[in-house]
């Protein structure tokens, strides 16, 4: 427990709110800059404009049409050791299966905790996270915060937002003392309500809930003032501690921004899946409106390559991987009302998004499957012959 959290919480009314959480957000909608709070990202074609808070970022190549999008993901020469981990991460995003208990290994930590000592970084977990940025356009559900107001911004477990006042009044943990839950408070200067850039589930605000709820704008919202259940202050986010509060032990969104050495997050939470599906509803944010689309990630170096995965000496030694990307209008829209943005690559990268892994880390590549091409998953469509199992009689 941080002293400041304890102090702020003790100043508030000590009312226990039932635990509730929820969130998901998109790349480019809020970037934390030098000037205090996080500020809006800018479209690559017009940096004088800003990306509105309620925007959605779509995959590379999305232009508003309902056509399926195929993204070829190429593994650069010299990085072949990541091949199996990358294949598994691709398969996981293609399947979009929500899980709980996805956080394991030597440590499943939130940013405010000290992770257990470990030496290896899990390749599949990092690739899954980076593909969430690079292929799906997802952003971290939590936000950075300069708690000491000294210019050093750190990842926290508070839910992502912008236009928040500086410390100490901007963000405070609620009576449950858990960052990222619905009793947190976030304020602008003069006590106004800042913008949440996180979607929450209107029904129960639980990002770990797995059921048959249709994911679109009738079931999810970003409006703190209109759609939060009464008595709640803020949309919460899918970190491990909020999972524990909601009966989803050892669960943490793949898109949660911090990954400890030794930590494994090799399957998606509901929050990860929900946010990917929200983008797939297309222009109208509604399922079945005729503009829904699909995305298929393919491990292939065939033209056109969309994402190139390689290793390099990243500037920040604390970064396990990075995807350098921008956003631009998916199609012509009024800049002030624009909601749909598409991932774009820097011009010097020839339209290819670079997913770069830190070559200085000791990587855990994970175990290779004994068989490939779908044999272990039961998909034998690529096999020329399938012989029925022979069993011995009694």
């Amino acid at each position: 427990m941080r002293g400041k959290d304890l102090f702020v919480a003790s100043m508030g009314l000590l009312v226990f709110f039932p635990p509730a959480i929820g969130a998901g957000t998109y790349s480019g909608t809020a970037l934390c800059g030098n000037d205090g709070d996080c500020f809006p990202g800018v479209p690559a074609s017009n940096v004088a404009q800003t990306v509105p808070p309620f925007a959605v970022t779509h995959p590379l190549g999305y232009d508003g049409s309902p056509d399926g999008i195929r993204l070829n993901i190429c593994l650069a020469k010299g990085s072949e050791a990541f091949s199996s981990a990358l294949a598994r991460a691709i398969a996981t995003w293609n399947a979009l299966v929500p899980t709980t208990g996805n956080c394991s290994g030597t440590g499943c930590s939130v940013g405010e905790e000290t992770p257990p000592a470990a030496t290896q970084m899990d390749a599949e977990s990092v690739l899954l996270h980076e593909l969430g940025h690079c292929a799906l356009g997802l952003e971290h559900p939590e936000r950075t915060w300069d708690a000491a107001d000294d210019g050093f911004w750190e990842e926290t477990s508070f839910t992502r937002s912008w236009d928040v006042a500086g410390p100490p009044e901007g963000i405070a943990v609620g009576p449950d003392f858990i960052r990222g839950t619905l009793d947190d408070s976030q304020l602008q200067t003069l006590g106004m309500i800042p913008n949440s850039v996180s979607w929450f589930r209107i029904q129960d605000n639980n990002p770990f809930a797995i059921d048959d709820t249709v994911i679109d704008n009738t079931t999810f919202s970003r409006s703190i003032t209109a759609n939060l259940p009464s008595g709640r202050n803020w949309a919460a986010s899918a970190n491990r501690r909020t999972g524990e509060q909601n009966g989803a032990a050892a669960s943490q969104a793949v898109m949660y921004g911090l990954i400890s050495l030794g930590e494994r997050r090799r399957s998606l939470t509901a929050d990860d899946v929900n946010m990917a599906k929200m983008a797939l509803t297309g222009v109208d944010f509604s399922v079945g409106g005729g503009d829904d689309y699909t995305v298929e990630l393919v491990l292939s170096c065939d033209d056109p390559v969309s994402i190139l995965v390689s290793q390099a000496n990243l500037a920040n030694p604390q970064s396990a991987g990075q995807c350098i990307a921008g956003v631009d209008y998916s199609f012509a829209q009024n800049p002030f009302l624009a909601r749909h943005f598409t991932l774009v690559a820097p011009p010097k990268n020839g339209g290819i998004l670079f997913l770069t892994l830190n070559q200085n880390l000791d990587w855990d590549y994970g175990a290779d499957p004994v068989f490939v091409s779908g044999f272990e998953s039961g998909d034998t469509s690529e096999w020329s012959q399938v012989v029925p199992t022979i069993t011995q009689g009694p």
Partner: protein
Amino acid sequence: MKKHWLVGAMGLGALLLVLLAEFGVKATEDGRGGFSFPSDPALELVRLSFTGGTMQGRTEYSLFADGRLLVAKYETEAGEKTTVLARKESSVNHRRINEVLQHLVDCGFADLGDARRRQLEELRPAYFSSDAGTTWLDLRLPSYRGPTAISDRSVETSFSLRGGLEGWVSSHPAVPEFRCLQDLVPMLRKLEGES
């Protein structure tokens, strides 16, 4: 006799070059800022810090006037360093320290005035990485003379960037400060590896 003069002049010139390389330059004639090598050996001249990224804590590269290069990983709480998680100290010579300082001087960090700082802060990166964290540079020069200055002054400046050096350089390739900061990283890593 002429030959002796020539040899003497060449020797003196060579000696001067060595001294400049070893103990700093204060040459403003070529349009570059200059500095004197600090007399306080404990002075921390350059600190390059990284926070955020996908891993917790803060990593710092600190270069001291006595040639110590300290690379340390810290645990942090509310922005404050609390525990040293890893620490490596090595030693580099004056020539290398001068190269680092001159690199930063040439990029304009010693002359980073309010107007230029405002210009840089108004820029927005069109491309960035969510997992790149913050890069923070601190530069201290007790005796610095700018390209057009007539007297020395001390320099103590800080500069930070969020969203990843790679993204800022991609977004604004013509801004020397961003490129310079990116180039500083391998420079310090090379020094760490050399010693």
